[in-house]
């Protein structure tokens, strides 16, 4: 099938490359001209396992890059919207990028098309997209809007695409459902996994992945509900860790004890300095805002967020109690990305903690195997960047290590 993927960030780029790998003709669109040029020349702008191989495999054949949204949509049967949906000041999702893409699509509907939300968006966004496309004079039966939320995790995004726990399709017409089923057929019918050049299967993966087919609204809600639940799991265990510290119990044993309950599961039960990244914090705020808009105060989520903020304060407190005063002390920070295996530092707890340490007057030497360049954009010369953990630790009074969540 001919597919346009709009937005060539983490999600768009990975999804586009993977769609090409399961046999589709893909045009990756971005309005960042430099990015398009870099991608065309063969650069890989993000650190992601298997991505360079896939891009190499398909670039120029089944995978092309373009800055021309209009032409890309005209040439395609399905258009995936994968632009960013950051938080606004008020905490709800900023949908202006999605809106501008929807406008762009509306003028290019030359035959039936499915417009698919891949970005994480609040429930009802599909109706807004539909309205915008209609307002710009497309015929009502010339397109459908569907939701196909993405569950990939940075660091293992490519594997996650092929070996996902489930594929969720939210669609409100038979025709549209059928198209989405067809797109994912190489995964759901298992044929992809027979190929000798398939991306290797991780241990835990079940193949073929199950598919959940539901209404667009349910699919939109589902993605927010998942991330909110996972964040809650992290905050829960962080709160339990605090109780453990206070009563003298061992949180790792507690994790083992509750994680072996299959109704709970051991994953995401690692206490630490809290969740971060480009998804959890913003998705939680957005879900909170969605609920409020519909008349619900989802206070449970407020508590999840409060615990998360508190983790950083508690962490700083630990540094304090270990070193007494901080001004002028030299500290090594090992790890800056929001988790291991990625170079993404958006809302990374490591960055926030480093900022707090700088405010306290510490001298910080930092090391991260992948995120150094991105972190340099944030800190400039305020932080010294080392090439390995040993250099960072040299002469330090204390160091910290970001573990992957």
């Amino acid at each position, binding site marked *: 099938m001919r597919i346009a993927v709009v937005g060539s960030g983490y999600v768009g780029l990975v999804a586009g490359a993977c769609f090409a790998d399961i046999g589709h003709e893909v045009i990756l669109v971005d309005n960042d001209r430099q990015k398009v040029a870099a991608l065309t020349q063969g650069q890989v702008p993000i650190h992601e396992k298997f991505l360079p191989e896939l891009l190499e495999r398909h670039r120029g054949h089944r995978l092309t890059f373009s800055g021309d949204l209009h032409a890309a949509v005209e040439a395609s049967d399905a258009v995936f919207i994968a632009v960013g949906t950051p938080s606004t000041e008020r905490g709800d999702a900023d949908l202006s990028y999605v809106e501008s893409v929807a406008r762009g699509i509306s003028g290019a509907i030359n035959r039936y098309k499915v417009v698919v939300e891949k970005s994480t968006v609040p429930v009802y966004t599909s109706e807004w997209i539909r309205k915008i496309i209609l307002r710009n004079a497309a015929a009502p039966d010339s397109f459908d809007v569907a939701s196909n939320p993405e569950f990939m995790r940075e660091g293992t995004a490519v594997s996650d695409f092929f070996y996902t726990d489930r594929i969720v399709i939210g669609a409100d017409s038979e025709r549209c459902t059928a198209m989405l089923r067809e797109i994912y057929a190489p995964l759901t019918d298992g044929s992809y996994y027979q190929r000798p050049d398939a991306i290797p299967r991780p241990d835990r993966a079940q193949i073929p992945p199950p598919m959940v087919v539901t209404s667009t609204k349910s699919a939109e809600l589902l993605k927010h509900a998942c991330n909110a639940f996972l964040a809650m799991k992290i905050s829960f265990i962080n709160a339990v860790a605090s109780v453990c510290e206070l009563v003298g*119990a061992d949180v790792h044993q507690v994790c083992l004890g509750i994680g072996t309950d299959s109704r709970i599961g051991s994953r995401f039960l690692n206490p630490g300095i809290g969740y971060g990244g480009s998804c959890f914090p913003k998705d939680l705020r957005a879900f909170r805002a969605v609920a409020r808009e519909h008349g619900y105060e989802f206070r449970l989520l407020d508590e999840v967020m409060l615990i998360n903020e508190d983790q950083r304060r508690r962490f700083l407190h630990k540094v304090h109690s270990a070193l007494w005063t901080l001004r002028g002390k030299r500290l090594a920070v090992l790890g800056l990305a929001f988790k291991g295996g990625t170079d993404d530092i958006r809302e990374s707890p490591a960055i926030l903690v480093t900022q707090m340490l700088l405010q306290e007057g510490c001298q910080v030497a930092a090391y991260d195997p992948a995120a150094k360049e991105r972190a340099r954009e944030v800190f400039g010369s305020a932080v010294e960047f080392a090439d390995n953990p040993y250099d960072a630790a040299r002469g330090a009074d204390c160091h910290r290590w970001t573990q992957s969540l």
Partner: protein
Amino acid sequence: MKLSVIGAGYVGLTTAACLAQIGHDVFCSESDVEKLAKLQSGIMPFFEPNLEDVIKGVCNAGRLTFGSTEEAIAWGTVIFICVGTPPLANGDADLSSIENAARTIAKRASGYRLVIEKSTVPVQTGSQLRKYLAANRTNGLKYDVASNPEFLREGSSVEDFLHPERIVVGVDSPSAEEILREIYQPVISQSFTCPIHPNCAKRNEPVFLVTDTGSAELIKHASNSFLAMKISFINMVANLCETVGADVTKVAQGMGLDSRIGPSFLNPGIGFGGFCFPKDVQAFIRIAEKAGCDFALLREVEKINQGRIGHLVEKVRNELWVIRGKKIAVWGLAFKPNTDDVRFAPSIALIESLLSEGAKVSAYDPEAMDKAKAVLPNITYCSDPYKAAEGTEAIVVVTEWDEFRRIAWTRIKSVIERPLIIDGRNMLDAKVVADQGFQYVSVGRPSVIPAEARSAEREGPVLAAQDQTAGAMAD
């Protein structure tokens, strides 16, 4: 090994019977004389699947005896404390039964005893017990105290005990660990004769986790609190689904397939109840509070749960308009299926609320009616679901008993005043009941109008059409 169990409630009796089943010689005590008399003459004091058979078997084989706590303490060197730990008004666990048992041990025991807390107790109860025994022992008693929290669920307690996912033991000495390992060896290696199914398929060896006493105590509270939180979370999502017109069943399905989340405990409904969850959540909040940590997350979990009954009553009111004087059937009273336990069951709060608004309630439950009569004397108890539905204007489904899935709906239709079902557990098949002419209201999903009304009515999207038809998982 000679083992003693103090307290013959759901946990104690199951523990005693199963420990005997795997080959130990067990003495089980009970302080309630009536209950003890029943047990001694072979009568079950409560309903629990398979338990009666196991007890008969081991009693006949002479491996289980019932009697007084004094006798139990004289019996063996290992004592499992399984007495109740209900909540006090302030949310703290009432540990007076534990203290009672400890007092008897301190007074009566001599030589060495391994005292094991199986009851759910707040963290540091173990060290309190140690202090208590040290201060009050009389006959040169030597002791270890261990924590061995119980994860069985009423309704499947025998199965849960014999085929657990994990056994947690919190110990402070290697000898205590050794003794516990030896006691549980047949369960750890799954090498006993299974009394439930001779060719038992479920033979996964459990994890045997050894921790310090405090961590083991915390594990139990943290586990139950997490599960309660999972339920409250999905209930909150269900509310949201109702307002935006999404289907919580689908949302839960999509969430549950995420291996980091898992499908169990994602069923929306009228909230958690029973003897364990509400009190364990409360106790955990208090434990944290005393340690100087405000576990507000769990207070929200509680609040959401407390709102569930009102939410269901609101659904009833929405459909019936005025509740005063209306006859309403309630199906299910036990706090969950396969048990007769009604302690802190949502059914009680629900019925009390309906009564206070002037409804007339007729109720049916396959097992829990005797126990419910003590708490709810002013409703009509019926011998089957059909009688309960007679002349009522709504059926409210409260407990997920399997028999409610096999109802002859035409029969109900002929006796009911108004064909309306309010399903607090999302357990019925919407399509089946709608085809039989019922209006079907559930949790977190659009309500469904009966088939005939649907064809009569013009403007149509009464049920989330795609969700129901396109439904189901592919592959």
